C-alpha cells in the first residue's frame, strides 16, 4: 500500500496541479470576460513541449531542472494528502522546508547555466522574494510547530484534527491570517509575479527553456502550486481525513489566490519584500509571541 | 642670630641650588643653562660640606692633642665633595664641548630653537 502511494501521490499531485493550472487560466479568463481555454489546455501544451525540439545550454541546464522537479516530487512524498503520507518519519517539517529549496535552486542553477541575463534577473528576483516571504512563513511554521510541539507534519495535521484547525484555535489564528497574506507570494501569483514578468524580462528564469525542458518547467509549476496550497491546508486548515475533502479545501484556497491574482497589479520586488516584511511578518510575529507566551 | 649662624651655610647652599634651578628652567641659552648647572653643583657641594661642618670646628686629626672628637669637622663630606667637584668639572667640560659642537652644527645656542628631536 505504501509503495503504491509512493508511486501514486506524485501522479495525483501532478494531475491536481495541472487541473489547478487549467482552472486558474479558465477562471482568470472568466474574470477578464473572456471564454478562456479548455481545462486541459496545460496538458496540451505540455504534450506539445515534449514533442518539440529543445535547445540545451549545457549539462547543468538539464540537470538543474531535473533536480528541481525531483525535489518537488520528494516534497510531495513528505506531504500528507488527506490522511495519506507516503514518507512520514524521515525528518518531518524541517526536511520539507529544506526540500522545498531544491525546486527554486535547481531552476536557478539551470537558468544560470543558460547565460541569459533575463534569467539571472528573474532568479535574483525570485530569491529576494523568497527571502521576503520566508520570514513570515518561518514565523508561521515555527508558531505551529511550537504550538503542537512537534516537527512532524503528520503530527501537526493529526493534532489539528483532534482539536480544531489552526485557523480556528486562538493563538494560531494570527499565524493563519499571516499565511493568507503571504500565500500569493508563495504561489507566485499576481501581486508577486515580478519573477516571471513575461514582457519585461521574458519570463525570467525560464526564458531559455524550450521543448521538453519547458515541459518539465510547466510540470514543476503545477507541482509547486500543489505543494504551496496543500502545505497551507495541512498547516493551518487541519488537513483532511480523506483526499476528497482535502481536494475541496485546496480548491477553496486556490480560488482565494485567484481572486487576489485578478484584482491586484504587479509589485516591484522591493515593494513586495517591504510588504512581506511589514504586515504579514508583524502579524506572524505577534502570533508566535502569543504561542510562546500562552503555551498550549 | 644663632639660627643664622647655624644655618647660614644651608641657606647659602639652598639659595645657590635655587638660583641654579631657576637658571636651568628659565634660560634658553645653552651656555647659561650650563652655568646654571654649575651653580647648582656648587650649591650642592656647599650643602654637602655644611652637612659635616661644625661651626668653629677643628680638623679631624686625632694624633694632635687637645682636639676632641666632638669639635672635629666630619671629613667624609669633604672627601665626597672633592669627588663631586671632579665629576662636576668633567660634566661641565663635556657640556661646554658639546655646546661648541652644537653651535657649529645648529648655528645657535638657543635651546628653544634646537628642538628637532621631539615627540
Amino acid at each position, binding site marked *: 500500500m505504501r509503495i503504491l502511494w509512493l508511486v501514486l501521490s506524485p501522479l495525483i499531485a501532478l494531475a491536481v496541479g495541472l487541473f489547478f493550472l487549467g482552472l486558474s487560466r479558465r477562471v482568470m479568463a472568466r474574470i477578464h470576460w473572456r471564454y478562456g481555454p479548455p481545462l486541459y489546455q496545460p496538458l496540451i501544451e505540455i504534450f506539445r513541449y515534449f514533442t518539440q525540439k529543445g535547445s540545451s545550454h549545457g549539462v547543468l541546464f538539464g540537470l538543474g531542472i531535473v533536480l528541481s522537479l525531483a525535489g518537488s516530487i520528494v516534497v510531495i512524498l513528505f506531504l500528507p494528502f488527506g490522511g495519506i503520507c507516503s514518507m512520514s518519519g524521515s525528518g518531518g517539517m524541517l526536511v520539507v522546508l529544506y526540500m522545498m529549496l531544491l525546486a527554486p535552486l535547481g531552476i536557478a542553477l539551470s537558468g544560470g547555466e543558460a547565460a541569459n541575463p533575463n534569467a539571472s534577473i528573474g532568479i535574483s528576483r525570485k530569491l529576494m522574494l523568497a527571502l521576503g516571504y520566508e520570514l513570515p512563513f518561518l514565523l508561521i511554521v515555527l508558531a505551529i510547530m511550537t504550538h503542537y510541539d512537534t516537527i512532524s507534519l503528520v503530527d501537526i495535521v493529526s493534532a489539528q484534527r483532534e482539536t480544531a484547525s489552526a485557523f480556528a484555535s486562538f493563538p494560531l489564528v494570527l499565524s493563519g491570517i499571516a499565511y493568507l497574506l503571504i500565500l500569493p507570494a508563495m504561489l507566485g501569483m499576481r501581486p508577486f509575479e515580478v519573477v516571471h514578468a513575461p514582457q519585461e524580462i521574458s519570463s525570467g528564469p525560464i526564458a531559455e527553456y524550450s521543448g521538453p525542458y519547458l515541459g518539465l518547467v510547466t510540470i514543476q509549476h503545477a507541482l509547486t502550486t500543489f505543494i504551496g496550497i496543500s502545505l497551507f491546508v495541512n498547516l493551518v486548515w487541519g488537513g483532511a481525513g480523506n483526499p476528497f475533502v482535502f481536494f475541496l479545501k485546496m480548491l477553496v484556497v486556490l480560488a482565494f489566490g485567484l481572486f487576489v491574482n485578478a484584482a491586484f497589479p504587479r509589485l516591484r520586488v522591493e515593494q513586495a519584500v517591504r510588504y512581506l516584511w511589514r504586515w504579514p511578518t508583524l502579524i506572524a510575529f505577534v502570533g508566535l509571541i502569543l504561542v510562546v507566551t500562552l503555551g498550549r | 642670630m644663632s639660627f643664622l649662624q647655624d644655618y647660614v651655610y644651608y641657606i647659602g647652599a639652598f639659595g645657590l*641650588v635655587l638660583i*641654579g634651578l631657576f637658571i*636651568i628652567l628659565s634660560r634658553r641659552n*645653552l651656555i647659561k*643653562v650650563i652655568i646654571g*648647572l654649575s651653580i*647648582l*653643583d656648587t650649591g*650642592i657641594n656647599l*650643602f*654637602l660640606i655644611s*652637612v*659635616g661642618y661644625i661651626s668653629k670646628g677643628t680638623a679631624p686629626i686625632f694624633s694632635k692633642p687637645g682636639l676632641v672628637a666632638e669639635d672635629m669637622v*666630619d671629613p*667624609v*663630606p669633604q672627601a*665626597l665633595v672633592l*669627588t*663631586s667637584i671632579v*665629576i662636576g668639572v*668633567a*660634566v661641565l667640560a*663635556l*657640556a661646554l664641548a*658639546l*655646546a661648541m*659642537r*652644537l653651535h657649529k*652644527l*645648529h648655528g645657535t645656542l638657543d635651546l628653544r630653537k*634646537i628642538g*628637532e*628631536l621631539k*615627540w
Partner: protein
Amino acid sequence: MVSPVLLIVIPLGLAFCVPLIGMVSKRFARFVPVVACLFNLVVSVQLLPAVLSKPIVVDLGGFGAPFSINLFVGPVGILFSLLIALAGFVVSLYALAYIDKGPTTRYHTLYLLLLVGATGVVLTGDVFNLFVFFEILCISSYVLVAYRGDKDGVESAVKYLIQGALGSALLLTGIGLLYGLFGTLNMAHIAVQAGSADPIPLFVAMALIVVGLGVEAAIFPLNAWLPDAHSSAPSSISAILSGIAIEVGLYAVVRMVFTVFGASSMLSFLMFLGVLTLLVGELCAFAQSNIKRMLAYSSIGQIGLIIFAIAIATSGSITGGFFQLVSHTLSKALLFLAAGYMIYRSGSMDISSLEGMGKRMPLTAFAFAVGAFSLVGLPPFAGFPSKLLIIRGALADGGALLALLVGLVLLGTVIEGAYFFRVIQTVFFKKGDGETARCEAPAIALVSMFVLVALIIVIGVYPSLIIGVLNSAASELLVRADYIGRVLG
C-alpha cells in the same frame, strides 16, 4: 674563588689600555672590549653558584662594614653583572663591524667605561660610590650618544646631559641629606637606621634620590631624554643604553626603595607610576614613524612594566620583573642591533624605508622579528615566561585594583604588539621600491645577533635555566634584614 672586585677593576684597567693599544694598532684595540666583557662574563658565571648559596661582601680598604666602601655581590648584583657582561659582549662583537668610522678607540674606551659604571652601580654597597659609578655611566653615555657628531646626536647629547646632570645633582643632594641624617653612606647601615629617622627629611631624601635616579631609569615624567638619546645614538650604543643603562638606573631605584629605605608604602605609588610609564611609552611608540624612536619609546614602556612588576613586591612578581628585565635586555638589544644594520643599509630611520628588508637582509630581519616577538611576549620566546610570571604574580594577589592595573598593562601590551607587528609587516611583506639585491649584515654582526636569538629562544623554552637566579634575586630584594645582616655582619 675570584674576587668580584675584578669585575670592576679589570675592565676599568682595560678601558684605559684601549687608547694605548690603539696607538699601536687600531684594529687590535677593537678587541679589547670583547676581551673585557668576556672576562666579566666568565667571572660572573664562575661567581654565580657561590653567590647563590651565599652573597659575597667585599670590604674595600680593610675597614669593617659601615665605615668602608663595600661591594655587595648578591644574586641581584650578579644577575645584573651577568646581564651587563653578556649584553656588553654581544654588542662589542657587533661593534667590531658596526663602528668603523670616527674615533673608534675613544668609542671603545668610553664603551668599556660605561660598562664599568654599570657594573659598579649594581655591585656597590655604598650610596656615594653608587653615585660615582652612576656618573661614570652617565658621562660616558653622554659622549657616546654624540659619538657620530651629527646634528641629532649632539642635540640629544646636550639634552641628555642637561637632564642627566640635573638628575645627578638631585641624587647628590639626596645623598648629602642621607649623610646628614644618618652620618653614614653604607646602604645597609642606612637601612638599619632608616626606620627610626625623622620621616619628613627621610622622605625628602628619598624623593630626591628616586627622582635623581629616576631620570636615568626613565620613569614617566623624567624620561624625556630617552627617545632622543636612544634614537640618535649609534645603534650599538642604543642597544646598550636601552638594554643596560636604564635597567641599571632602575636597579638603583629599586635598591633604594626596597633595601635602603624599605619604603613599602611607596610601592603602590610606584605601581601606578609603572603602569603610567608603560601606557605613555606604548602610546607614544604607537604613534612613531621613526623606527629607533619607536624602539626607544617601547623601552620606556617595558621599564614601566618592570617597575609595575617589582612594585607589586611579591616574590613571584619580582621574579617576573627581573625576568622581564632579562628578556627586555636581550630582546631590545637584539632589536636595536638588527635595526641598526637595516637602517644602515636603507639609509633612513623611517619605518617605511624598511620595506622589502625581509628579502634584502633575511637573517637580520629574522633576528628583528624574533626580538619583536619576544618583546611582545609571544611563546616560545623569552618575553613570554616573563609576562606570564608578571601577570601571575599580579593576579595571585587577587585585588580588584591590581586586576584593573593588569588590564591596563595588557592593554599596553596590545598596543605594543600592534606597533611591533606593523614594523614586521613592513619589513617582510611590503614590497620594497625595486631594490632587491641582497645586502646582509656582516658576519660578525650576524653572529652577535644570533647569539641573542639563541638566548631568547633557549630562555623562552627553558625558563628554568635562569629562574633560580631570579628567585634568589627576588628574595634578596624582599628580605631586607638578610641584606643588612650580610653586610654588617
